[in-house]
């Protein structure tokens, strides 16, 4: 941290901090607390029955596995995209770099309808895959593709800066000592970028678990097969089963918070590394 020891020289400490905490409480903390209060009024047996029956477990499973698969795909291809953007020169590089941010800026519903049109049986890509016996839309594969779209920027944008700041010296040394490129990558570069890659993976995974807009269109929403957990909450709400919806929401919140905690720990370790280096 820069600056003098006494930072209270500047005006507005009480006002800005007070307003920040007030607004945070009103918009985020108090409404979120409602989830816990509502579930607390449910009773154990009821709660357990809601969050642990075949259809709900199937939905957690679909959400969890597709988010995991998508984050894995993004870890591989996201690293490749970051690598190519940082290290090579090719025409249209700046345009491609902007394109990576598109999933951040594009509304999820638009991504959903567009991916569905593309990968449905009569779609542009879907019709090519159909003769090969691959069905994408309305299967877990379709959900995974939607989540790959959503999660891509998280991996690229966390890996990119680390890759950019990597010193060339260590790679030089590895070459001098006779290592081939791939070995240098595996032994020198990969350990350096691993924390960033893992953070990107975790961010993409956490986002994928809760994603709704891009998935509902392409998933087909068949209970036990392609129904995701957020959709289950939606369905319960439409049937005015508020307690049931809230119980499932609580389970998802706990999963997200654990993911968030892991991400923060990873980032803390990453910062330590860069400072000590």
């Amino acid at each position, binding site marked *: 941290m820069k600056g003098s020891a006494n930072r209270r020289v500047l005006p507005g400490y009480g006002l800005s901090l007070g307003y*920040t905490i007030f*607004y945070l409480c009103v918009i985020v903390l108090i*409404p979120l607390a*409602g989830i816990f209060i509502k579930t607390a009024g449910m009773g154990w047996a009821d709660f357990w029955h809601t969050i642990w029956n075949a259809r709900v477990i199937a939905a957690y499973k679909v959400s969890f596995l597709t988010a995991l698969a998508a984050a894995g795909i993004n870890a591989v291809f996201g690293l490749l995209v970051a690598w190519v953007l940082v290290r090579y020169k090719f025409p249209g590089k700046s345009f491609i770099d902007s394109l*990576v941010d598109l999933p951040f800026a594009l509304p999820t*519903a638009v991504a959903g309808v567009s991916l569905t049109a593309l990968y449905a049986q009569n779609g542009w890509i879907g019709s090519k895959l159909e003769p090969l016996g691959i069905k994408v839309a309305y299967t877990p594969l379709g959900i995974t593709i939607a989540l790959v779209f959503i999660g891509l920027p998280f991996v690229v944008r966390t890996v990119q800066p680390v890759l950019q700041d990597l010193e060339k010296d260590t790679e030089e040394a590895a070459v001098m000592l006779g290592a081939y490129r791939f070995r240098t990558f595996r032994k020198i570069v990969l350990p350096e970028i691993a924390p960033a890659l893992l953070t990107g993976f975790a961010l993409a995974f956490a986002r994928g*678990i*809760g994603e709704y807009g891009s998935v509902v269109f392409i998933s087909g929403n068949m209970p036990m097969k392609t129904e995701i957990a*957020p959709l289950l909450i939606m369905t319960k709400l439409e049937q005015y089963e508020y307690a049931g919806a809230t119980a499932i929401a609580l389970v998802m*919140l706990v999963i997200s918070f654990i993911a968030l905690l892991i991400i923060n720990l990873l980032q803390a370790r990453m910062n330590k590394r860069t400072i000590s280096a």
Partner: protein
Amino acid sequence: MAGAVTAHLSEEASVRPQHINESVLVRIVLITIALAFLTLVVIFPLLTVFIEGLKKGWDVYTASLRDADALSALKLTLIVSLIAVPLNTFFGIMAAWAITKFKFRGRNVLITLIDLPFAVSPVISGLIFVLMFGAQGFYGPWLDDHNIQIIFALPGIVLATVFVTFPFVARELIPLMESQGVQEEEAAVVLGAKGLKLFWLVTLPNIKWGLLYGIILCNARAMGEFGAVSVVSGHIRGETNTLPLHIEILYNEYQFSASFAVSSLLVLLAVLTLAVKKFVEWRGSKWQSK
């Protein structure tokens, strides 16, 4: 969790001597795979929106944009973001000021809490307001007695949108203001600058481009939010339908061309957002090299 991590592409890292670079063939293969992946996942979906939107011709395209329901959805979307974005912008500036200009205990906890909405599923973001203000909610009976409607009406949509876009401006400003330190402000205070004048004349010129990007990104998310708004809106056509919800309705009614025509509006918004980002990065790199 970061909603947007700004990374500058510098030329330096791509200038590499031959012995610590891959062979030309490997480079070409890697670039090709990366581009193929991006084409499949990002470029094709983008093109699809325009191809499908224009499939039935220009007249159908413009007619679906001029449709009364589409126009009222557009109007509602604009109103919602006109309320939500300034609220979160003001908060973002206040939070970034408190967090970067002063040292206090629990600073990191506060930063984590500001990120919280990123970790919450959009559906849950809507649900929490239904639990508070819905007919069966904590304040439901009281609101009913006083004839105030929040859920299935404009206030609910605004609240859900504010929640979802809560961290964007703060997230953009905190790292930026942190890296700039406090020296300039302290010097200004010594010279007699006070309160708002200090912010307006010293801080704002340094952060204006980052702030602009934060606002634009916040706006893109506010206009495009689907899950959270879907929970609280009630989908009343011409009344509580926003643009993304209108896309869903048209799609479910098999009016694909119209659905994609409306989608293309939001794609243009996204492209505009990315263009502003590029511009801000360009300004930033110019500023750094000075």
